[in-house]
């Protein structure tokens, strides 16, 4: 693992941040044998690639498997079959401790409901990931400094000692984003980041994610909102546990216009099917 760690934060790291190959996830009794009649196949062979510095949206109706994919990509869960390579390291069979360590250092989570601890001030919420980082032996002062810097980066430098209930929803989500960034992760995973926000706050959060993307962060966002999805460079649409389309640059606006009103992913898939063939295969793409 040291060679992988050493590669972190340098430009010599692998080009792909995420690479899943034929990932399946079966929920069910016992060992998850696919022939088990009670088993539910949440993912049926998903292969996606996300390059360093990409901003990708994952869309799909309820039950499409996007949450399951998100959990696997976020190292909160392991695939039943297939491999998941995160920054060149196969993480599909790691134990809980190793996964925790990967989440801590390589992944920054942004949740729909912020998930801030109400008893802690903004700065204390932000430095939580630093406390679980066993690789850096930071002093309390250094931790505080880094947490404050992260809050300043999201424009909350003047709110560091506020508790979540003293902040607006948008501000709380900014705190959560600061928390996601504080360990300088290779991947920011945002799960419906604007789902609980009014339009204006939502736009601000999207703008912030854009800024982060511009500064080089790799962002994967799960969303129901076509408007938000349109902000991404690329959309991965899921249906019934399979990838139905990769929508490339420019197509995002198409999807929002044609499909957004009722979020009919089936229609989107049909519309996109023809469009997709005209483009080169998504995994060939790496020129960002």
């Amino acid at each position, binding site marked *: 693992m040291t060679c992988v760690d050493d590669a972190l934060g340098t430009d010599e790291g692998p080009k792909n941040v995420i690479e899943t190959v034929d990932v399946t996830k079966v929920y069910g009794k016992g060992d998850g044998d696919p022939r088990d009649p009670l088993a539910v196949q949440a993912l049926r062979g998903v292969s996606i690639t996300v390059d360093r510095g990409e901003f990708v949206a994952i869309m799909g109706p309820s039950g499409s498997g996007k949450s399951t994919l998100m959990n696997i990509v976020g190292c*909160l*869960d392991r695939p039943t079959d297939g491999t998941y390579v995160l920054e060149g390291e196969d993480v599909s069979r790691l134990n809980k401790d190793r996964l*925790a360590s990967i989440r801590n250092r390589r992944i920054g*989570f942004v949740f729909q409901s912020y998930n801030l*601890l109400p*008893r802690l001030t903004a700065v204390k919420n932000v430095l939580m990931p630093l*406390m*679980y980082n066993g690789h850096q032996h930071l002093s309390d002062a250094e931790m505080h400094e880094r947490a404050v810097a992260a809050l300043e980066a999201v424009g909350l430098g003047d709110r560091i000692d506020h508790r979540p209930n003293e902040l607006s929803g948008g501000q709380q989500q900014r705190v959560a984003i600061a928390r996601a960034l504080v360990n300088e992760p290779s991947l920011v995973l945002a799960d419906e980041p604007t789902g609980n926000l009014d339009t204006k706050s939502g736009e601000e959060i999207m703008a912030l994610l854009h800024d982060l993307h511009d500064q080089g962060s790799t962002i994967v966002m799960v969303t129901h909102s076509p408007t938000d999805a349109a902000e991404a460079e690329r959309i991965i649409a899921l249906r019934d546990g399979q990838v139905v389309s990769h929508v490339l640059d420019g197509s995002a606006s198409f999807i929002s216009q044609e499909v957004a009103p009722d979020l009919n992913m089936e229609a989107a898939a049909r519309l996109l099917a023809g469009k997709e063939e005209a483009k080169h295969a998504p995994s060939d793409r790496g020129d960002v």
Partner: protein
Amino acid sequence: MSFRRTLQVAWEGLTLNKARSFLTTLGVIIGVAAVIVMMAVSAGAEAEIADQINALGANLIVVMPSFQQGGVRGGPGGGMVGFEYPDEVEAIKREVDHINGISAEQSTTQEVEGGEATLSDVSVVGTTAGFPAVREYQVALGRFLTDQDNEREEEVAVLGYSIAQELFGDRSPLGQKIKIGSVNFLVTGVMGKKGVVGNTDYDARIYIPLTVVFERFETRRFGGDTLRTILVSAESKETMDHVMADITTVLAREHDVPVSEPDFNLMTQDSVIETAASTTEAFRDLLGWVAGVSLVVGGIGIMNIMLVSVTERTREIGLRQALGARPRDVRLQFLLEAIILSLIGGLAGVLAGVGGSRLFGELGTMRTQLVPTSVPLAFAAAAAVGIFFGYYPATQAAQLDPIDALRHE
């Protein structure tokens, strides 16, 4: 996460709900305090008994006849064989070294009349001049009985403290006449306060010459005046065994029995203390169990609250896991919460226990004696309770699935 930071996080978790944390520790506080107070109470009871026995007299050896089957000297039907007075007492006095004093006792119960009062069923003790020394008993007024009183069978009496009060009130009884049974006695002295030792209230007794008891109150046995109690005090603890061996030799020779099969018993405070100690030990064990049970109940309280806390904070646990907490980090956090609760409870319980022991003692209802080892013992028990009863909830927390935990409402 480092231990110090986990400790910090655990502390934050506890201060989240201060009232509940306090109520949870209350169980441990009571348990620990109970252990300490119970041990202090039973140690106090033991000390009380030991003191009473010691008050019988320092290095005292009590010689009493043992039951005999068909003994020669005790009469045709057997029974207890006494000692001949004064011959056998004199023989001990003459032949046994390292003794501080020797005396004998022979009690009788009589009606006593004197001053303004008549008292029935008064314990009248016939004894010798050596009695105050052997029993560590002080004369408050006048003089005690002398060897001359015994030789001449003088009808003189020394009153116990409360008897003197009852008969004469505030007046001095010295030189007054009292009537014991039908015999008139001259009061020559009053004893100081000694109180109840064992089952004997020294202050409620009257002391007269031993020879007078034999002469006036107790029927003479054939073969001489037979005594049922000889008291010998040895010079020191170290000479006790030696003195006892010599007494046995002398009395066995006088009684014409083998040393290995004496018809008498020698008792010391130590043997009496041992008998008493076995009783108090059982008492202490019982109290210990009661206190231990309350500590376990306190521990169950901690486990209960920790399980509630884990359920309430499932989302927080999920978040921490997502942010990189390993199962062992989560377990340590909740285990530390339980340990902190029980250690604080232990500390407060030690204070409450020590204070409670003092209070009990000062209120005078019970004698208490703080057992120094009970403090670390109770504290360690509290810590063990925290670890034992905190482990299960902490493991439950550590085993939560981060995805389910994050979704928990």
